């Protein structure tokens, strides 16, 4: 229409073409903008909009029609909980510090852990060991969770990517993927892994519970389990089960990136590097190159004596079988 109006005016051919071009482009752009706006309005009114929380904890508004329920598939697609469990938490590098001078073998950590992960009494994600290095050095109690190695031998040998290392340093297991070959048990120098030899404790009750990688519940027959650094708790900003349960202030847990760790008993937050520096922190068997994320403070200045009965068990490992 506009083009028609302009036509009668006398202009040079060059001017005419120039103006025609400007007007043409302008009208095209304007037209499409109006069209898009109309469509946008239409979509707003036509279908219901809902708000969803993404994995990154951001609120988004989307069409309800665009919502798809994610179902577990047998062909490699992961459920939301599986994917979330594999992704881990951005920007975090979780570490644990275990102060051996504080441990009195109260075993509240073991109980809390078994309770959280629905384990049998003989199944330990965390195990308090009675240790004795040499005949003349004093025995001590050593809680031993998975070391969440930065160079994990278990992850290397897994043939199906059922066990994996997350960006936040935690090593987890997907027991929907695990084939039960137990190569990871053979490869782990810390004996951190356990296997569901029989039907798990709550198999009947939890039949329909959706599998949570970060809790490894429900446990499954014929698959591996191990300490998860309580990835489900950590996601909520809480301390791991064992750490919170300890009555003796043995455990510190935190983020290496922030250089802070929090004691599970006193809730005191301290500098991670400083804690190691001041107390001679070390890792288990560093010579194996596994680079554990669990640090130990030596059993120096213990006030509680070592149980005499436990002494015998501690020295068993020392003597040759």
């Amino acid at each position, binding site marked *: 229409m506009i083009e028609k109006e302009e036509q009668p005016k006398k202009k040079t051919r060059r001017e005419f073409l120039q103006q025609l071009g400007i007007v043409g482009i302008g009208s095209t752009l304007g037209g499409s903008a109006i069209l898009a706006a109309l469509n946008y309005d239409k979509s707003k009114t036509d279908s219901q909009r809902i708000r969803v929380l993404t994995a990154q904890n951001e609120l988004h508004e989307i069409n309800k029609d665009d919502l798809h329920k994610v179902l577990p598939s047998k062909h490699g697609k992961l459920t939301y909980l599986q994917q979330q469990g594999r992704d881990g938490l951005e920007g975090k590098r979780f570490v644990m510090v275990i102060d051996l001078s504080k441990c009195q073998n109260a075993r509240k950590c073991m109980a809390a852990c078994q309770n959280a992960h629905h384990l049998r009494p003989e199944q330990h994600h965390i195990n*308090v060991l009675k240790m004795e290095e040499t005949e003349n050095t004093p025995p001590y109690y050593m809680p031993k969770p998975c070391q969440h190695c930065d160079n994990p031998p278990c992850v290397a*040998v897994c043939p199906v990517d*059922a066990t994996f290392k997350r960006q936040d340093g935690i090593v987890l297991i997907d027991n929907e993927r695990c*084939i039960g070959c137990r190569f990871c048990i*053979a*490869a782990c120098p810390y004996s951190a892994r356990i296997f569901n030899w029989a039907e798990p404790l709550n198999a009947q009750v939890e039949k329909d519970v959706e599998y949570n990688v970060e809790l490894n519940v429900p446990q499954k027959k014929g698959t591996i389990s191990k300490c998860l650094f309580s990835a489900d708790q950590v996601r909520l900003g809480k301390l791991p089960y064992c750490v919170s349960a300890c009555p003796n202030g043995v455990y510190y847990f935190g983020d290496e990136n922030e250089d802070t760790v929090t004691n599970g008993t006193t809730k005191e937050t301290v500098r991670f590097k400083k804690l190691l520096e001041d107390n001679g922190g070390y890792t288990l068997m560093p010579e194996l190159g596994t680079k554990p994320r669990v640090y130990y403070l030596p059993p120096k200045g213990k006030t509680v004596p070592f149980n005499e009965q436990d002494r015998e068990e501690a020295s068993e490992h020392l003597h040759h079988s």
Partner: protein
Amino acid sequence: MLEQSTKDKITSDLLRSIRLTNSFKAWMAFLTLSLFVCLGAYVYQLNKGLVVTGLGDYVSWGMYISNFVFFVATSLIGMLISAVLGLSGQKWATPLARMAEIIALAFAAVAGLVIVSDMGRPDRLLNVFIHGRIQSPIVWDITVVTVYVLISTLFLYIPLIPDLKICHDKIEKLHPIARKAYKLLSLNYTGSHEQDLIIKKLTRAIAIFIIPVAFAIHTVTSWLFANTSRVGWDSTIFGPYFITGAFVSGTSAIVIAMYFFRTNYKLQEYITLEHFDKIGKLLVLVSLVYLYFNLNEYMVPGYKMKKFDARHINALFTGAHAFLFWSVQLGGLIIPIILLIFNKMRKPLPLLIIACCVFVGGWFKRYIIVVPTMEHPYLPIQNVPLNFKVYSPTLVEILITIAPMILVLLIVSTLAKIIPIVPIQETIEELEESHD
């Protein structure tokens, strides 16, 4: 040239075994029945989980894995006899080639099943192919074992083609379907010079190719252990240690097969005393090499007695596993070597008995490699039931371990019934060459 009558005699002699006898039927029935009993045990394990075994969180690999290693080991005999001896011009081994190939194929194919019996979730076997990750030695193992089974099949089949033709032509009283199968499988072989040349070339190519593959399967199997940081497994010589051990088990297996096929199929003219003598010498040779590796494997850590190694070595030398360890080393290796030096001991019967000791010793040797290491982790085993600390296999586990052996016997017996166990064509050819 050989006289036609001689050729006919060889052909009819070697074809004689291919017929259904009552004793064969009884033998197969016995094997099948036993297999079903063992399969029942496996179904039980499938239902209940691996809890029916003696395995625990510490000794999590036991008889099944030992069995797997033993099966892969024994399957290397095909490569040793047919490829290594064949390529190096050891003509005397020709009549044994097919037997070796059958044993190799049976043990390699069944090894794959053995590993499945150890899986906690055999229903997820396909995950290995769907989600397989190349850095896991298990994926390497599956790859090379599959390749070895395929090549071993070809290695058995290609040189067999002329004999299949002979089976088709010469066996009287044959079921029409069987005759048709022979014809089909002989791929229109007519015995022309060109066809023979193709078969020769192909066989030679496979013989060359199978050597690195056979080395690969057992080296990779050894890496399942050596690639961990465990005492007793953390060794750089595990590859050759396993390979040489494999030759010992394989050679003893073929001695046993030779003896029974020779007696049952009346093959005294073809599997002669000389064969027993030579294979006995071969057994001494491979056993000596294996003994040398054993010396290295145990003497070096045994001399240093590092903290964690010491517990392991002590358990083997003087502790809980000492009886088994010394029985295997003496009865399965050292005494056989000494005995086999004497001519008299390389006669069929004494050699059979010695080979049986070596064979059984070979199985327990794998057990000694797998189990004690798992009982000696770096950190103490505490707060678990006693059966997690000391491994003792259950009856169910033993039955499931026996099943693959029965399956091997079934496969070997069946194959030996449908194809000539001593190659006909090659035996005739070799006789012709020696006459010329």
